[in-house]
């Protein structure tokens, strides 16, 4: 009998020594978390088996934002699917537009004009910055730090202002078109963009100073949510999570599309594969994206004026003046509006590097003006699948930062 037990039994004669030494009766507890929980930005339900505060098992239940994206795409024209792609990942809608349109362009065998390609890259990188700002900002918020979240959101507003200048919408941009973009950027855009880039850099510096070395933030992130390189690859994980384990896979480098092969940028990789590495990878990528946007502005100035849409009657409406004066163009306009473009029969898969990883579109056409099949390969869903590997055996509280940096976006995960 230990000294404390001896002391207690002497003073409490009704206490049996066995009560103090025998195993406590414990049982695992099942905890439902979500689908709407204030500490998770993403509509998902976790059924967690807990031993005290330790996660023994976790079942992730997705689908709460399912709205039949693929089914809807199969009932409209090829163009009518573009606004739906905005609603996939609403933090970086332009990247979703881009993935879909480039898959359809692959099917149509269309090469877009150079000016259009630079503008697409620029708009896409602004969207990527917005996405990473949301991820890192919201992670701070959910770890109970309000200030850095506000810095992040202020910077995100600046990217959305630029998005508004480009296409008139802030969040659901509907900017990219099959064979081009909505229209040429306004002449005031480059100056405004440079001004906002400087402001975003300032805010990122503020963010960095508050967060990166912050003891609480570092303690919550370092060593939590670790996953191995092999597990990542087996589970098809891509994007910042895969880079955080040290695999420099970035489709912008590996399989360059648009003008990424002419752009100078670095791909950051982590070494440990924990949440802190994911945070650092995201911050580094934001700075790289700002560099890319600057290079795009320079390239666009050097390139001079030119078309931003491919001159292909299958996907492009004829010029208004010709529609009013010529029969063929009038008919073509009528058919384009009422029927939409016809896409040759076949199948194509095209993937872009979205903020979350490989965003692929697999499109099948039967030769008509209505898609036969539009499949979106959602990085959010596929990155979420190995979540149990990241959190099993860790504390319940570690689930919050891990889930934040998986950055599951319900709209894209559930479609």
């Amino acid at each position: 009998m230990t000294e404390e037990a001896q002391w207690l039994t002497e003073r409490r004669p009704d206490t049996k020594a066995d009560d103090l030494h025998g195993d406590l009766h414990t049982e695992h507890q099942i905890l439902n978390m979500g689908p709407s929980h204030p500490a998770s930005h993403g509509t998902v339900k976790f059924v967690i088996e807990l031993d005290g505060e330790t996660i023994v098992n976790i079942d992730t239940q997705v689908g709460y934002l399912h709205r039949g994206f693929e089914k809807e795409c199969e009932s409209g024209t090829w163009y009518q699917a573009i606004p739906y792609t905005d609603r996939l990942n609403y933090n970086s809608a332009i990247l979703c537009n881009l993935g879909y349109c480039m898959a359809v362009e692959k099917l149509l065998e269309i090469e877009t004009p150079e000016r259009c390609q630079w503008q697409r890259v620029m708009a896409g990188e602004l969207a990527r910055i917005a996405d990473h700002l949301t991820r890192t900002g919201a992670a701070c918020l959910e770890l109970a730090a309000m200030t850095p979240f506000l810095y992040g959101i202020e910077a995100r507003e600046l990217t959305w202002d630029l998005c508004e200048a480009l296409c008139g919408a802030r969040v659901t941009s509907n900017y990219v078109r099959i064979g081009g973009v909505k229209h040429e950027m306004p002449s005031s855009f480059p100056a405004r963009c440079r001004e906002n880039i400087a402001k975003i850099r300032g805010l990122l510096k503020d963010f960095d100073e508050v967060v990166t070395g912050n003891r609480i933030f570092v303690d919550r992130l370092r060593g939590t949510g670790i996953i191995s390189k092999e597990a990542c690859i087996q589970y098809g994980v891509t994007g910042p999570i895969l880079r955080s384990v040290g695999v420099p896979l970035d489709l912008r480098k590996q399989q360059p599309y648009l003008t990424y092969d002419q752009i100078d940028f670095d791909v950051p990789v982590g070494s440990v594969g924990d949440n802190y590495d994911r945070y650092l990878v995201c911050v580094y990528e934001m700075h790289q994206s700002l560099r890319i946007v600057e290079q795009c502005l320079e390239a666009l100035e050097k390139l001079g004026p030119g078309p931003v849409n491919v001159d292909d009657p299958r996907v492009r409406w004829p010029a208004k003046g010709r529609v009013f004066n010529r029969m063929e163009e009038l008919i073509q306009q009528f058919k384009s509006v009422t029927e939409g473009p016809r896409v040759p029969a076949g199948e194509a898969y095209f993937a872009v590097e979205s903020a979350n990883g490989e965003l692929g579109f697999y499109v099948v056409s039967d030769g008509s003006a209505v898609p036969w099949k539009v499949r979106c390969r959602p990085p959010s869903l596929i990155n979420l699948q190995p979540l149990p590997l990241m959190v099993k055996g860790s504390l319940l509280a570690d689930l919050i930062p891990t889930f934040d940096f998986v950055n599951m976006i319900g709209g894209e995960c559930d479609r």
Partner: protein
Amino acid sequence: MEDHGSPLLRRLLDALPAAVSGTHAELGDATAIVRPEELVSVMRFLRDAPGLEFEMLSDATAVDYLGESPRFEVVYHLYSVTRNHRLRVKLRVGDEKPEVDSLIPVWPAANWLEREIWDMYGIRFRGHPDLRRLLLYEEFEGHPLRKDYPKEKRQPLVGPRN
């Protein structure tokens, strides 16, 4: 069988000629159509063969070609991180009792992707340990991405579960 100039298809055809029933490389996407009973052995070969090394199952989905026979097509997209190349593998399955071998032993990534295909198309996966619906709820009637499922169809109201 034609390899359409793709070294990936050539390797596959040389190693497992009997397992492949068709190939194409339209728009630069190398594609192999395999016999359903050979799926797992083909995938294991593609994952392990030196020079191919498809360590990653990028995506799995299905397409409903209503009116054709066999009706469904299951489509896998593979990616090799080491070699940086892609391959599409497809197979056909009929609609009386659509069932395909599960690929979870080859790539654990197949788990949720196969659950989604079951959910949306009603194709079952042999050997899947936990074939629940992924995006919809258990009481949902039918498989909505089948072409004969009307878009406007209503579902019965489901009460709270206790």
